[in-house]
């Protein structure tokens, strides 16, 4: 009997459940948290509301909110990983071995990187693009609303899988990019690397689908009059990001597939024997990985371009040069990938080529920094929370850019490769660039989506804790890196005198955590006190672009009447000319119906990944067939849209305008 189940469930046995107290604690808290959440939902009879309003929705605004909620939860997970790493390195000097067992420390740093990039930064990115892009181009929806829902649910399926590794089995201990030969079956025989492969593979396919979707949306669904050079800069940054996703993510998919074939079917793409070449993996993963970091940061550039123009009450300085800077950064980002492995042994000519292309990126990036500063110059600047994030960004991003150019010099990189200097550099870019940008965006667009503003004072406190915590956490890492401390190090000799710097860095992460606590309090307090900060009129910041022309919260159909624009900053123009809409004539609007199919498809994909991880082949076959069958069933459904009648539109618009007045 037991033998039958052993075969039936592949490699999955009772041993897969956690024995280590820390992992067991995490597993228990995940399970308990889920149960408590479910109990509360039942207690307050919210299941049907959740199902109807959120889980089955095809409205990009709601999908965007769900992306951001998932990303925020994952931020907490990634932050607790960061706290564990800092605790380990602050305590593990000399005779003390620190607080974490070695293998767990390796799993923690692998999970931290993977989660922060794929499930926090990417989640915030797609969340924002879902929320804002259709509104800024004057569209009612995205090009393929169902595919959009599938993308979100695949992202969530990947997220579930990576957290499942805490409860069932283990996570990868091979770093966030799982270089072979370490990630090959011979050296990582457990299921950890398989969890890593399949959670990224599933989420990655979702990203690719989103890339195609928003590319089509921006190219085909702009409102009348909105030529390419009239698009808001955030839309430009989204467009260029989507092009990069379409060209970069297939490389990730193919590379992960080859690694999975090596591990599961005994192939030899990247093994040391049988004709494989581990260096090819490093080459391919960075051919995706370098564009990926620009995929993350370009939308943040777009956000800042909107924020600076609005809060300086000025037209963005150098619009055309901003567009060209984005495009050239995107192109350059595809020809620099070797700088991640200068030390792997390429010759001087190869290293010099990629070093120079890397340095060249500083030029268009510098153009953007100066354009933002010139936008502020002689503007009437309002120092709101988004502007604080912007100014924090300018400082940290410039420092990070300078250390990046330093790392682009191959001889310097030979010294600093894999040191904490590198770790400090990329956190400088990703926290100071991407995360600050997305926080600015959330504060800036929150009233558009929910109809009330976030509390300013708490937002400012959160900003200062984040900024000071960031400096405390990463300036010591720059110093440690220059002193020779390598990354992913779980123990060091006390005679090196590094411990006090690690302790300062640990304090820094605690200060960042306080910033996160303030953000959570800010959201809760703002919801509680929302009566005092209503922004139903839809234009709380005196905005410039189309999204501010609708009432807030935005109705399902976005625009009762599709706008026609005649210039950049179309809404600003309309306010300046004082043109009033005279008795609009509404029409029936066709919108996509809710459907749970997207969720089902992602659930089947989740089962597929889980089956592959544990070698449960019947589950792989069944769920693989399920995905295809569900797609075919969905493709043959015809009754997928519903009508909002003109009368209903008139009623919604009137009540929105009345509440605003």
């Amino acid at each position: 009997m037991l033998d039958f189940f052993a075969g039936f469930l592949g490699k999955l046995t009772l041993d897969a459940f956690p024995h280590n107290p820390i992992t067991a604690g995490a597993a228990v808290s995940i399970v308990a948290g889920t149960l408590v959440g479910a109990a509360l939902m039942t207690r307050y009879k919210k299941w049907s509301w959740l199902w109807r309003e959120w889980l089955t929705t095809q409205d990009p605004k709601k999908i965007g909110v769900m992306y951001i909620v998932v990303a925020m939860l994952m931020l907490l997970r990634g932050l607790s990983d960061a706290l564990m790493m800092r605790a380990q390195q602050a305590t593990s000097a000399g005779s003390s071995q620190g607080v974490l067992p070695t293998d767990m420390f390796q799993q923690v740093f692998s999970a931290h990187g993977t989660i922060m990039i794929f499930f926090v930064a990417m989640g915030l990115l797609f969340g924002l693009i879902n929320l804002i892009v259709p509104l800024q181009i004057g569209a009612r929806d995205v090009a393929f609303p169902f595919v959009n829902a599938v993308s979100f649910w695949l992202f969530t399926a990947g997220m579930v899988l990576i957290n499942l590794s805490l409860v069932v089995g283990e996570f990868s201990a091979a770093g966030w990019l799982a270089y072979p030969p370490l990630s090959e079956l011979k050296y990582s025989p457990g299921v950890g690397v398989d969890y890593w492969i399949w959670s990224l593979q599933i989420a990655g396919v979702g990203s690719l689908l989103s890339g195609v979707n928003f590319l089509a949306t921006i190219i085909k669904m702009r409102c009348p009059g909105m030529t390419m050079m009239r698009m808001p800069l955030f839309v430009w940054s989204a467009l260029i990001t989507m092009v990069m996703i379409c060209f970069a993510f297939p490389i990730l998919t193919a590379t992960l597939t080859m690694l999975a074939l090596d591990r599961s079917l005994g192939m030899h793409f990247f093994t040391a024997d049988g004709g494989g070449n581990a260096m090819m993996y490093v080459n391919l993963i960075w051919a995706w990985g370098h564009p990926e970091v620009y995929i993350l940061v370009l939308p943040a550039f777009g956000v800042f371009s909107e924020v600076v123009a609005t809060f300086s009450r000025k037209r963005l300085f150098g619009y055309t040069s901003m567009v060209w800077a984005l495009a050239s950064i995107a192109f350059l980002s595809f020809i620099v990938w070797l700088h991640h492995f200068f030390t792997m042994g390429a010759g001087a000519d190869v290293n010099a080529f990629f070093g120079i292309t890397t340095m060249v990126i500083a030029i268009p990036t510098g153009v953007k920094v100066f354009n933002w500063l010139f936008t502020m110059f002689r503007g009437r600047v309002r120092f709101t929370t988004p502007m604080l994030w912007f100014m924090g960004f300018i400082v940290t991003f410039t420092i990070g850019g300078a250390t990046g150019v330093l790392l682009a010099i191959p001889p310097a990189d030979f010294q600093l490769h894999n040191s904490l200097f590198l770790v400090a550099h990329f956190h400088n870019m990703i926290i100071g660039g991407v995360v600050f940008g997305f926080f600015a965006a959330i504060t800036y667009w929150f009233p558009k989506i929910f109809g009330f503003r976030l509390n300013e004072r708490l937002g400012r406190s959160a900003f200062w804790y984040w900024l000071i915590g960031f400096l405390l956490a990463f300036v010591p890492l720059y110093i440690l890196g220059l002193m020779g401390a390598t990354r992913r190090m779980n123990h060091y000799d006390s005679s090196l005198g590094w411990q006090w710097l690690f302790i300062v860095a640990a304090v820094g992460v605690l200060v960042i955590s306080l910033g996160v606590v303030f953000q959570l309090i800010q959201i809760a307090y703002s919801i509680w006190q929302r009566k005092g900060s209503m922004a139903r009129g839809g234009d709380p910041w005196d905005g410039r672009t189309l999204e501010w022309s609708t009432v807030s919260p935005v109705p399902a159909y976005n625009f009762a009447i599709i706008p026609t624009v005649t210039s950049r900053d179309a809404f600003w123009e309309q306010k300046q000319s004082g043109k009033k809409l005279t008795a609009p004539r509404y029409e029936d609007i066709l919108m996509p119906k809710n459907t749970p199919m997207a969720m089902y498809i992602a659930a089947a994909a989740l089962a597929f990944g889980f089956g592959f991880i544990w070698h449960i082949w019947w589950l792989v076959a069944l769920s693989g067939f399920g995905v295809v069958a569900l797609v075919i069933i969905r493709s043959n459904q015809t009754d997928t849209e519903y009508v909002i009648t003109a009368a209903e539109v008139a009623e919604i618009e009137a009540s929105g305008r009345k509440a605003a007045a």
Partner: protein
Amino acid sequence: MSQSTHQSGSLVSYTVGFVLSVAITLAAYVATVNKIFTGWSLVILLVFLAVTQLLVQLICFLHIGREAKPRWNLMAFLFMALMFGVIAIGSLWIMHNMNYRMVPKGVEVNNYLSNQDGL
């Protein structure tokens, strides 16, 4: 939303595309596993089959060439060609350079590889 401009293919085009795709994939598999071709002739054959597969799918599944305004498609293709060139040529350059510098001798490795896999 865009029903009027939506062009779906016929059952025939999808069936032809599917059958051709399966046939091309099987041809590649058989040629490799049964060692019908070896060495460079196999590499050339596989590249040829891959490109054919790409064209079949573009024509039969994505209906390239039937759209009203092909400007965006043209741009996408040109950009794809550029990116493909960058990544393929860049990877070949990098890997060749590293192999040249990191293994004993090119000839020795080739001998070793052909003994191992029959390439």
